[in-house]
């Protein structure tokens, strides 16, 4: 049986990742991140997906990001909430809703932009949420590790999630060592590998998958 994967995300990277994971044999059901802000709705959505899959081996939460850069001083409160606070609330609700469906050997992966670690002008709200998700991932690793539930963060080039305006947002002196910043093809293999029992002794770690741009620890 293929890996039973619940993927939460919206946008082209999520769509492409679903297609690539299915091509690798995963059974993938999607959860729309917009339902996560209400705890009850998150529970209903996750229960429905888990019921369809039978169980959940892998949770992939791709951080949703707003369109276009906006300096923080020009950001409306509503836009801040949508780009920063709602994703953090939703991430919490998703994990809470998933907990009863996760057994020993299951894996939780958050996909965030590397701007979580380096910041990004014009994308402060999303970057703020992204680093929050990274810490949540680590805390869950510490809490649920005793039940052999593991976690990881896959940090990707900002432009994959934030759009082309973020292409220079990483502040790197040089471009990616591997010549390109990647896409769903590159990420699906990493996510698939993380779901393997062979990877089960790493938890709470961040894997930077941006072709070798961000190389800080």
């Amino acid at each position: 049986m293929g890996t039973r994967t619940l993927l939460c995300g919206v946008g082209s990277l999520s769509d492409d990742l679903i297609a690539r994971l299915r091509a690798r044999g995963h059974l993938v059901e999607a959860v729309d991140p917009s339902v996560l802000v209400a705890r009850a709705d998150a529970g209903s959505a996750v229960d429905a997906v888990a019921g369809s899959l039978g169980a959940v081996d892998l949770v992939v939460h791709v951080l949703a990001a707003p369109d276009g850069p906006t300096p923080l001083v020009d950001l409306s409160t509503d836009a801040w909430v949508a780009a920063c606070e709602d994703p953090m609330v939703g991430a919490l609700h998703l994990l809470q809703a998933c907990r009863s469906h996760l057994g020993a050997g299951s894996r939780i992966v958050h996909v965030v932009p590397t701007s979580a670690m380096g910041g990004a002008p014009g994308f402060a709200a999303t970057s703020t949420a992204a680093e929050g998700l990274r810490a949540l991932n680590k805390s869950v690793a510490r809490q649920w590790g005793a039940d052999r539930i593991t976690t990881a963060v896959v940090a990707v080039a900002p432009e994959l999630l934030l759009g082309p305006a973020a292409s220079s947002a990483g502040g790197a002196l040089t471009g990616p060592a591997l010549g390109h910043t990647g896409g769903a093809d590159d990420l699906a293999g990493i996510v698939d590998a993380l779901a393997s029992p062979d990877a089960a002794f790493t938890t709470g770690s961040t894997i930077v998958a941006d072709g070798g741009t961000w190389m800080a620890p």
Partner: protein
Amino acid sequence: MSTDRGIGLLEGRVALITGGAAGIGLGIATAMAREGAAVVLAARRIENGEPAAEALRDAGHRALCVRCDVTSRSDLESAVATTIDRFDRLDCFVHNAVGGSAAPGPLEEVDDGWLGLLATTVRASFDAAQVAHPHLAAAGGSFLLLTSAAGMEGSANLPVYAMVKASQRALAKSLSREWGPDGIRVNCIAPVARTPAMERAYRANPELEERLLGRTPLRRIGDPTGDIGPVAVFLAGDLARFVTGQTIVVDGGGFLGL
């Protein structure tokens, strides 16, 4: 309270500190005042903050208390407006206040009480940044956020606290890049200090102090004024004029992950 004075590292500067009535906020305010800054203690309860401000004034410092619930944008606006009205400028905004429910426990049991924590840390950082920005730009000042090593290493006991504290670091980094051209520096301090909140945590978890000391090379818990305050003075002053987007962990060496 000691009346000793520093060497004037912040002479002529003005700082506003949220959560300034006690603990780390008061420690930072006191250290800044001793270095010559006028300090505004933004406190949720004026009856808590005013005695602290009065003590600073009695020691010969310039100090003022303003009532400010950081979850209220209008309170933040009013606090900054009062600061400008009274002292003519704002050189450093320190967002230290944290509130709401962050009781230790499993992630599964976190209820909506944590939204208060989100409001006092994340939303208040956003509101404070927008409110303070024009004044910090005019002064060539700095914005300082209080974060925690829990946000860098995760927390088995305080998962949502770790989340909000981590997020503030990323906000500081993004703002350092947005505001650098305006001449504003943005930094974080991740402290461990003996505060009223820490004392409550010790009472709830008697093993906590021993565990903390056990991983702390300097074998003591920090003092808000003597240990944390001087780092805030450094970050607010000219000695740190080329430092932005950084987190300084001030915990006696307990967390060495940066």
